[in-house]
């Protein structure tokens, strides 16, 4: 599509970024057509990590699916567990005791901090800083993973939630260690911000890059920090408060322009809000003995015929589970609404007109995990 006549014939180059590439966050390929340095068109290609998750789910019983949900967004296994557990509880009408709800909120908010800390680390890494911000982010992530290990037994594949509560109660040393983590967190976030927020090089590389205007964000049904970066204050924990999120007060950070810099600042602000929620949850944590699970809840359930869709605010966006039960032990249909997959769709529009070096930064700012995209 070139204007005729005086145009200087420039040859369009097809560059393949990925699937095996240092900065594509997992196995993901982008076929980029480039005119000189600017990008004309970008075709994302994925499916390399497809593991037939939803078909396996239809063969397994409801309980047996729980460990598989850890492997969806392998960064936030607790958030996936919560979404799935809430979907089944809604389907089979199982109540969750108070203490279990608080434990769940604590775990998911810890996952949010861990996810944003490492997502920002990877984003700055794509911009070229040699792993120093990532090393700081990973240090905080290690601390949180130690807490997960002492409660659920595994660092990444926690498999900690059950229908009606959680597997086992918090270990005795969990609360004091979490409190010391929360005291240490502000130094990490302030240091991260002090190091990078005003940094000229970071501003040049991220201001005005990968702009996703409001209307386009809504039309692509993008959710999570990407949507809030474009300036729309939509957070499911506020818009449709599930579990006990209506008992905590926290703010919803939004950006103005919707570029990489806004999404960077929104994620930093969200880490602070998660810290606020954690502090309130720790104060209100009821210490009912054995309150971590509803005793009457049976794990091998046969939910009555019907369907249920629940959605939670996972660190990457709106994570939804749609379950259809035919009364049997295995779900008839099991669908996951993966936020990374939906947030990935506007990538081609967001990258058009920018330089090749910006593609990787824009992809990093969307923060995708291929396990969730390909399922």
């Amino acid at each position, binding site marked *: 599509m070139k*204007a005729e006549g005086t145009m200087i014939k420039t040859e369009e180059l097809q560059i393949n970024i990925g699937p095996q*590439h240092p900065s594509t966050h997992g196995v993901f390929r982008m076929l980029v057509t480039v005119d000189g*340095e600017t990008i004309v068109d970008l075709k994302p290609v994925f499916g390399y990590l497809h593991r037939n998750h939803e078909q396996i789910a239809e063969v397994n019983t409801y309980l047996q699916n729980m460990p598989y949900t850890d492997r969806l967004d392998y960064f936030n296994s607790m958030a996936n567990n919560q979404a799935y557990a809430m979907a089944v509880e809604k389907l089979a009408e199982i109540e969750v005791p108070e203490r279990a709800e608080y434990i769940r909120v604590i775990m998911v908010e810890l996952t949010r901090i861990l996810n944003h800390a490492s997502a920002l680390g990877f984003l700055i890494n794509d911009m*070229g800083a*040699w*792993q*120093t911000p990532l090393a700081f982010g990973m240090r905080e992530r290690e601390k949180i993973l130690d807490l997960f290990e002492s409660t659920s037994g595994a660092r990444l594949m926690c498999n900690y939630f059950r229908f009606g509560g959680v597997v086992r109660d918090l270990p005795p040393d969990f609360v004091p260690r979490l409190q010391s983590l929360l005291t240490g967190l502000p130094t990490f976030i302030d240091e991260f911000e002090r*190091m990078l927020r005003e940094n000229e090089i970071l501003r*040049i*590389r991220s201001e005005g890059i990968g702009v996703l205007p409001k209307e386009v964000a809504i039309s692509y049904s993008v959710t999570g920090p990407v949507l809030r970066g474009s300036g729309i204050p939509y957070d499911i924990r506020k818009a449709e408060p599930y579990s006990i999120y209506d008992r905590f007060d926290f703010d919803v950070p939004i950006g103005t322009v919707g570029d990489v810099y806004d999404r960077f600042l929104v994620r930093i602000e969200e880490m602070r809000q998660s810290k606020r929620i954690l502090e309130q949850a720790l104060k209100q944590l009821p210490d009912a003995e054995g309150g971590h699970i509803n005793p009457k809840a049976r794990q091998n359930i046969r939910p009555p015929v019907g369907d249920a869709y629940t959605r939670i605010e996972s660190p990457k966006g709106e994570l939804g589970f749609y379950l259809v039960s035919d009364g049997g032990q295995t779900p008839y249909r099991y669908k996951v609404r993966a936020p990374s997959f939906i947030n990935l769709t506007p990538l081609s529009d967001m990258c058009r007109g920018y330089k090749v070096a910006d593609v990787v930064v824009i992809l990093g700012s969307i923060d995708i995990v291929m396990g969730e995209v390909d399922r």
Partner: protein
Amino acid sequence: MADVINHVLNTMLGLNAPEWLIIFISNSIAVTLIFAIAPLQMLFMTYFERRAIARMQDRLGPNRVGPKGIFQPVADGVKMFTKEDIVPTAADKMVHLLAPCVVAAPVMFMFAVIPWGPGMYAVDLDTGLLFFFAISSVSAVGLMMAGWASYNKFALLGAMRAVAQMVSYEVPALISIAVIVMLTNSMSIVSIIEAQSGLFISQVDVAGIPDLGLGWFIFSPVGLLGFICFFIAALAEGERTPFDIPEADSEIVAGYMTEYSGMKFALFFLAQYLLNFLLCAITVITFFGGWQGPGISWLWSMAVSEANPAGNPIFNVLAGILGTFYFLAKTYFFFFVMIWIRGAFPRLRVDQLMGFGWKFVIPLTIVNIFSASLWIGWIRWELNPDLAFLSALGEPYSFARWGFAFVATLVMNVAAYTLMTRINRSPDETIDELVADQVFGAVTLR
């Protein structure tokens, strides 16, 4: 070096060796020394870098091979030797083989001009600085050859960017060095270092205070701005963050080094690290007084040199050791600053890098030349009857003149710096500029 050998052979051992034999021996010793020291420097630098950047990231760095990981570079070297050297079939065999040599050879040339201590230099060219930068521009040709010979799209793109970056950052590097040449009236590196002795830049030796060798150029505003611009240009020349576009860019995998493996890759690596060492060395030589430091001149006055051939060679050795210590300490401090910057900053995009170079660094260096000429004018010009106002300042090289020049150039340089930063924050293309482009017919809406 030659006079020491002459002294040792003739006076000490008494055999009157012919002139050319002495020169031959001293030069051959110097060359073997350099060819031994350079790779060792490179090995230590890789280890130094990995340990330093590890500590910045709260980790330990290599500590398994040998005590405290000392032999890690040796292990890397052995690995490089044993790695298979893959040459792409479609590659241009000869050029692919020659490229690393053309990149590494000039770097060894540049060592010839670097003085490690008082009297310890391989050759004292009276155009030393110019030689240094002339030879460094030859490696750009080597990069071009590597990029082209690998017959790989990424390598070609990377080579083009690398050469564009090196050529476009040579300009500010040379101009900011020209300022120092103006101050010292000579391009010979040895005389530049000797000019930085004493206490103050204006070679005004205050009575009673011995020559502490602290008269470095960095202490004058002209030198300070020159240092800032030169160090930025050195970062770009040595492809260090935030300018390491060609080497580890996220979209062109490893730039011009993509198709190289084994020992050829190690040669590129060697050339890059030695270039970084040399750029730090030149920064230290021109702005921080090379091997100058307290105690050097006192030792050197008693050593064997043209000034007093009857000196005791022991002092040569002592002065040499102290000089080398100062020189290496400063150089490794600046290499640490390079690592430090690498640990803290992200990378610039190619067009931003070029824009930064041409719109920020080069204008600053030109302003610096202007303020340097003012500096020289104020301090050195003799009394001129019709320039009455100058005589008010006292005779040349006087303290008053030096103070006045200091203040004036400081104000000019700081003003230039802030103005440049203000100008360069140009916002993105506004909508009406877009519309204007549309008039050109170039903007087509989909």
